[in-house]
Every structure is written in structure tokens, then in C-alpha cells.
């Protein structure tokens, strides 16, 4: 006997994500799920961003990694509201891990919460955590085909960052092709070229400030 169901497989995760979303919204915080491959510069970007916005915006970070607290230690130099979530064998964060992480962070102290997901361009995309937006991070060192090879993050992201632009003279990267692929997958997504290590993050910082302002107003 067949029982027809037709229901989202990740329904139980999504229900917890909605609880997280309500908690974050009630605290008046803007929340970003930051997704990118290992080594694309997510943590470096957060370090530079925290340094740049110190005293202007209050930013907290939940950072997911399979193991070690190295990222949290790096971020803790610039921010007191940082929680490391070790996923063990999990290649992405899920809503329940974020729910537990939120218990260790005082949202009332924050304007922005960044969830730095486990380095991975595929698995984290499908798991709602309760964020306002997903931000995808690529770097030019990874090659210009990465958007076309990982269309799900391009489709789901509100903003894409192309990091390590300072390496442009040294790597072969067809920016036109990269942009064209993105445009075909998601013509609404914005793409910003940045360099976290060189501090070329003006557009990103402005974008962050705008999100906070539009949340308040």
C-alpha cells in the first residue's frame, strides 16, 4: 500500500530554523549565513570586517568547523561575541547546532550575527539556519568555473563576494565568464570584488551598514 506524502525532507530542520529566525528577529539582529569553500577567505574577511567596523557596528560570530577552535581564536582578537561550533563529522551546520550556539550568545548586544558555515560550497546551502540572507564567498584563486559548478549557492545567495582580488595579476581568471555564469543562474544576485587581506572591502562594509539601517527603519 502506498501512502502519498509530498513533504520537504528537511522539514524538521526548517522548523528549528524558524525558531532561530524568530529569536534573531525579536532581538533586532540581522543574520548572515556565510558559505564558501575551505580557504576562500571567510575568516580573513570577518577579521578585516570586525577591525574595520569596531565601534560602529556590533557584530557577533558563530563559526562552524569540523574540528579545532582556530577560527574562533582568530575572530576573538576582534570580537568578544564569538562561539565555535564543532560539527565533528558534519560538513555543514544545521539549525539545531545554531540553536545551541545562540544560547551562548547575547543577541541583545548585537546588530549583526554572522554564521560562518563549515568550508564547503555544496552541503551547507540546503540547510536553513534561521538567517536573513545567505552570502556566498568565492576567491579568484579557485578558478572562474566555480559559480557554474556550484549553482545552488549562486541561486540561493543574496550577495556573492569574489575574494583575493589582489591576486589577479598572478592567476588566470576570466571575470567576464564568471559574471556571465552567475547572471544565468541568478540575475538578481549582487557580486562584489574584494580583498580581505588588503582591506578592499568598502562595498561589503557599506552593504552591511545598509542592512542594519533598513532593519532599524
Amino acid at each position: 500500500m502506498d501512502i502519498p506524502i509530498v513533504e520537504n525532507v528537511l522539514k524538521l530542520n526548517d522548523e528549528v530554523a524558524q525558531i532561530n529566525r524568530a529569536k534573531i528577529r525579536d532581538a533586532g539582529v540581522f543574520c548572515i549565513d556565510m558559505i564558501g569553500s575551505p580557504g576562500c577567505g571567510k575568516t580573513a574577511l570577518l577579521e578585516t570586517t570586525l577591525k574595520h567596523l569596531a565601534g560602529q557596528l556590533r557584530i557577533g560570530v558563530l563559526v562552524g568547523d569540523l574540528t579545532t577552535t582556530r577560527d574562533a581564536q582568530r575572530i576573538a582578537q576582534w570580537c568578544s561575541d564569538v562561539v565555535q561550533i564543532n560539527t565533528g563529522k558534519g560538513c555543514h551546520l544545521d539549525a539545531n547546532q545554531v540553536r545551541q550556539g545562540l544560547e551562548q550568545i547575547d543577541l541583545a548586544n548585537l546588530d549583526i550575527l554572522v554564521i560562518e558555515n563549515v568550508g564547503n560550497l555544496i552541503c551547507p546551502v540546503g540547510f536553513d539556519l534561521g538567517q536573513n540572507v545567505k552570502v556566498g564567498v568565492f576567491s579568484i584563486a579557485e578558478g572562474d568555473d566555480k559559480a557554474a559548478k556550484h549553482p545552488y549557492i549562486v541561486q540561493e545567495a543574496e550577495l556573492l563576494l569574489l575574494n583575493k582580488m589582489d591576486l589577479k595579476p598572478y592567476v588566470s581568471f576570466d571575470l567576464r565568464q564568471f559574471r556571465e555564469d552567475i547572471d544565468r543562474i541568478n540575475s538578481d544576485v549582487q557580486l562584489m570584488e574584494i580583498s580581505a587581506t588588503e582591506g578592499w572591502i568598502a562595498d561589503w562594509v557599506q552593504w552591511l551598514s545598509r542592512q542594519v539601517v533598513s532593519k532599524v527603519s
Partner: protein
Amino acid sequence: MHEFSIATALVDLVKQHCPPGEKVERVSVSAGPMRGIEPSAMQWAWEAAIDETFLEGSELDLKIELWQMRCPACKKIFAAKNMFEPCECGCETTSPVEGNELKLISLTLADPPGPPENTSWTSPLSKTC
């Protein structure tokens, strides 16, 4: 390996829908190609996730849907094996539509056990009548 997380989420979801005491034979799932689910990894993850659960021995029927591509020239939407497949009108700048679904479609339950095979059995009491 998000397949394992998906498999464990599926076990929890099936638990909600399976009538108590019933044996599930097959779990049918449909996944959009955006999800990047690898069928062989998903089968392996399913076997691992159902081990020593009420679903042990059940089969996962996973259907990866085709891409749906939209042609900007002739506006046609067509099914394709690969993303960015050109349109038959010759246009090469097609775009994917949706493709991120991940749904539990149905459960197939085992048939209930039938009557005992030896139907010629008669009660010894009947001989006394």
C-alpha cells in the same frame, strides 16, 4: 557528504508519517538537480541511517529530477540532463529554473500477513456433529 544528514532527516520524517506497527518497504524521494545529491552516496547513507531502526531493510527509491532550462530567446522551458544545455532553437545562454526541491513523495507499506496457508483444516469438533 550532506547525503548522511539528509538520510537521517528522512528517517525522522518517515517516523512521523508511518502508522504504528506497519513495516515500510520503500521510501520514495524526489530531489532537484541543484541539490547536488550523489545517488550512490545517498544509498550508502540510507543503509547507514536505517541500521537498527524501524526502517531497517527498507528500500530508498531516489529520483533525481532533470534540469529545467529556460531559453531567453524562444522562452521555452525544457528538461535537460545538464545545466546550461543549449536550446533546440540554437540559443546557448539558457538558465536553470528552480531545481532545488527535496521531497518525501510516498511510503510503500508491506502487505499485512494473509490468512494461514492450511485452509483445509477443520475443527475436530465438527466430526461430532
